[in-house]
């Protein structure tokens, strides 16, 4: 158990490729941190620098209160779970679990006890004498987790451990990882490009983009107040609608339609506005924005209507029974709008006006 302190860490690969820039991250003891971002944003690189598999080009990484920049992976007191499991194919499950402990000269009785405990926790006791080849993907994943658990390390590092599993198994393994981490209270860093996985697992979410931290925060914080258009479009499904708009005093012009803001305008001039699909509502009054539907996706519990407001693509999420016609009118509670700088894409904060309370209490439709 230990805190991990990452300060001003950067990585330049041989040949001058810069993969990670100036990462500062304080991970508390027992915290579950998820690194999320699109492919190639440097998630694995950062994780592997913590693991010691990749040299740290800039900055320092501390595990507990020891700077580990020059420490071998085996001596960093971490355990890692890989995407392709990386089990030793010629060893039985038991030998796989034992190998790290044997190399550390753990007494035999202690090894047996720990293996038995981990196997029971992961329900792989009946497979202990099989080779990994004779296990299903999900079972292999459990063994890989077991190999991490038996070591009782200060931190678990996961690099996309679930992406080789089918959708259903992924959901159940996700729950299991979360439960195990809770129970063991071990500090964990988890890499994924799946925003749903990130949202459900994380105590704190770290959104990376192009090797830099875009935002750090609890899943709900990140969801409700994305720090940039990048985060807004990455977190949440369906992705947040981002449309170009113009602030004119207290009114927002999206194409030809106007929305009254009730004092929620952060600035004036051109902005990018973020509208969550589920915050948009269909209204009958002529006040709403005209919306032409192009096609509908049925998700069972939800219907997603994709279409245009003016000439900008917008998606709305409606309940399963909602009726959808070719052209509808939409409205949104002004407090649910997200404003971003049209140039930089950074969030523009709105100071809630005194009148806002009234506006929320009295829905437009």
């Amino acid at each position, binding site marked *: 158990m230990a805190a991990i302190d990452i300060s001003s860490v950067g990585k330049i690969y041989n040949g001058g490729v810069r993969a990670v820039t100036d990462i500062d991250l304080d991970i508390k003891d027992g915290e579950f941190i998820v690194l999320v971002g699109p492919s190639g944003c440097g998630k694995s690189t950062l994780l592997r620098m913590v693991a010691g598999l990749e040299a740290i080009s800039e900055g320092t990484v501390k595990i507990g209160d020891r700077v580990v920049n020059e420490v071998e*992976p*085996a001596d960093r007191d971490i355990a890692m779970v890989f995407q392709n499991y990386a089990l030793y194919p010629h060893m039985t499950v038991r030998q796989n679990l034992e190998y*790290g402990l044997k*190399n550390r000269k753990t007494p035999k009785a202690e090894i047996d006890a720990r293996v038995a405990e981990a196997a029971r926790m992961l329900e792989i006791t009946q497979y202990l004498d099989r080779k990994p080849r004779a296990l299903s993907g999900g079972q292999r994943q459990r063994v890989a987790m077991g*190999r991490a658990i038996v070591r009782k390390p200060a931190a678990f590092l996961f690099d996309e451990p679930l992406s080789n599993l089918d959708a259903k198994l992924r959901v159940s393994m996700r729950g299991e990882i979360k439960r195990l981490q809770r129970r063991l209270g071990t500090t964990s860093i988890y890499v994924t490009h799946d925003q749903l996985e990130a949202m459900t697992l994380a105590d704190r979410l770290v959104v990376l983009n192009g090797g830099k931290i875009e935002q750090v925060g609890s899943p709900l914080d990140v969801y409700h107040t994305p720090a940039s258009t990048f985060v807004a479009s990455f977190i949440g499904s369906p992705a947040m609608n981002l449309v170009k708009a113009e602030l004119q005093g207290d009114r927002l012009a999206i194409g030809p339609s106007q929305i009254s803001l009730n004092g929620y305008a952060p600035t004036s001039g051109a902005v990018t506005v973020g509208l969550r699909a589920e915050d948009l509502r269909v209204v009958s009054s002529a006040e709403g924005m005209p919306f032409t539907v192009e096609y509908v996706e049925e998700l069972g519990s939800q219907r997603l209507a994709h279409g245009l407001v003016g000439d900008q693509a917008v998606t709305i999420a409606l309940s399963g029974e909602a009726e959808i016609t070719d052209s509808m009118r939409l409205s949104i509670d002004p407090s649910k709008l997200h404003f971003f700088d049209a140039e930089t894409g950074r969030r523009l904060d709105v100071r809630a006006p005194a009148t806002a309370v009234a506006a929320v209490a009295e829905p437009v439709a």
Partner: protein
Amino acid sequence: MYRTKFSDHLVLILGSLFLCMPVVVAFMTSTHTAADIHMNGLSLAWGDNFIATYEKVLTQKGGFTGDITGARMVMNSLILGVGFAIGKILLSMMAAYAIVYFRFPMATLSFWVIFTTLLLPLEVRIMPSYQVMSDLGLLNTYSGLIVPLLASATGTFYFRQFFKSVPEELLEAARIDGAGPFKFFIDILVPISRTMIAAIFIIMFVYGWNQYLWPMMMTTDESFFTLMRGIKSILQVWVGSNIPDYNEAFALAVLAMLPPVAIVVIFQSWFIKGLTESDK
């Protein structure tokens, strides 16, 4: 589903006859006496001299000095074949391990330098090799027979390709599990290479077993003669009115075939796995 027709079987039967007949003829002929063969030529029928011929070949002391038996030659060939195969595997695994897993200056260059030795078979460098062995005083020794043959890239090349196909994460998992370079090699790389090792063992054993030119140059002492030389020397005694011992030559040839065949049959399943399936 495809139903096998008579003509399919015919083609296969003809093919196997074509491959098997020379061996059968050699074996059958070896059971006749030399004089018989000299008069009647090759034979497909069982002769009555089987025991006498094979006993003589295996136990009778022959050669100019008269102290080399067939059994001794089989033994020498085995030492050459097995020694060569094992030495080759040890050397080439270690070389491939260094090339694939360690970053040292000019690693790629050294691989290609090793690789180009493929273009220079022993026959090309046979005179300098002889000179070196002679200067080292290794003529007429088993080391002298084996060592110069070891220096070629085939094994290194195969193992390099194999190691490169081993997933990187296996090494990383082992590093995190506290295995150093030596432990990783012994505990993980060698066991997962075992089918590859079996395949290379067979190939190298047969190669060593079949060596002819090098043992002939290297060994003047008859107690180091290999089977291949023995067969040749029997047919060299065409002097005066002597009839060459055809039957003995055929018997030796049959004997020479047995160990490679045995090895292939025994290791067959491993061999095929090693060449086709990667067990990772």
